[in-house]
């Protein structure tokens, strides 16, 4: 009888594997943590979108919890998440934009049309800062604490539910 039960072993193995793979089906491969989590915001020295002569560096992100949003005029989801970003700014959260792989003209036009929740926009036409941040598409949003350390990373569109369920609690946590 004991030997008979042993014959069921392959079936049990198969069922375990099937369960494991079934769980995998529900995972979203685009939801993964940024490699920069808990690391310093990468060093940069770039002009601002608004004033070509004004240069900003990492000191911009020190002293206050900041949401850094990577956007571009060419990115449809960036337009859709603007109302959420505007409401975050209205709630007193400091926002800094990175105008990613864009032209000055189009970037400024975008802000005119969809509103500007950002204290300042870093102009990154070649995507150099984006590369250092591991940005692979826009929009992407980073939460930087008062010491300039990256604490949270959101890839893709921010929905009103995301604001309520993740962004605001994260901001509160590091405030």
């Amino acid at each position, binding site marked *: 009888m004991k030997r008979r039960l042993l014959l069921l072993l392959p079936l049990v193995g198969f069922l375990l594997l099937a369960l494991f793979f079934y769980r995998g089906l529900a995972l979203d*491969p*685009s939801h*993964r*943590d*940024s*490699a*920069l989590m808990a690391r310093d915001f990468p060093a940069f020295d770039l002009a601002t979108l608004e004033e070509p002569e004004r240069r900003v560096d990492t000191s911009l992100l020190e002293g206050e919890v900041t949401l850094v949003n990577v956007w571009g005029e060419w990115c449809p989801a960036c337009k859709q998440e603007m109302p959420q970003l505007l409401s975050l700014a209205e709630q007193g959260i400091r926002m800094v934009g990175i105008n990613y*792989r864009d032209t000055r003209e189009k970037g400024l036009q975008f802000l005119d049309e969809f509103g500007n929740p950002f204290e300042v926009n870093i102009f990154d036409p070649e*995507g150099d800062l984006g*590369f*250092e*941040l*591991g*940005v*692979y*598409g826009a929009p992407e949003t980073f939460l930087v604490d008062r010491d300039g350390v990256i604490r949270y990373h959101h890839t893709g569109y921010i929905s009103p539910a995301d604001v309520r369920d993740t962004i605001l609690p994260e901001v509160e946590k590091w405030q």
Partner: protein
Amino acid sequence: MAMIRPFLGLATALAMALMLLGNSSVAMAAGIEIREFDDPVMEQRYRDLTGSMRCPLCENQAIDDSDAPISADMRQRVYVLLQDGRADIEIVDHMVQRFGEYILYNPRLENRTYLLWGTPIALTLAGLLLVVLMVRSRRNAAARALSPEERARLNDLINRKRPK
């Protein structure tokens, strides 16, 4: 002559189809730039590196096969770092620091991945062990002589009279 005409038409159509096919493959390759290398070793390293990194955006393409802007940026960075004389391991580290372990088609051997790399080896060894055990038990069974009680019972069974 009348017989040949249709064939000519067919040949022309085939030639045109081939040209169209050729054009479309050119159009598809247009997203990926061509890089010239003086050193064939460097070229091979470039190919190996860009072939072994996953595009973070497209998820199922290597960066040497993807026309996503981020893949072009990553190829450019690999190229620049190669020209800069960096070692392969440094270049891979450089990318992983920015885009995460996710981009490696071959995950590194570390605490998190022992199970991943170890399972195939463990299963192969378990299979070999199973085969050895089965062969051995079968050989033992064949070699074992019957005990006097077993022989008596066997004889009884063989000589048993059929019920009428």
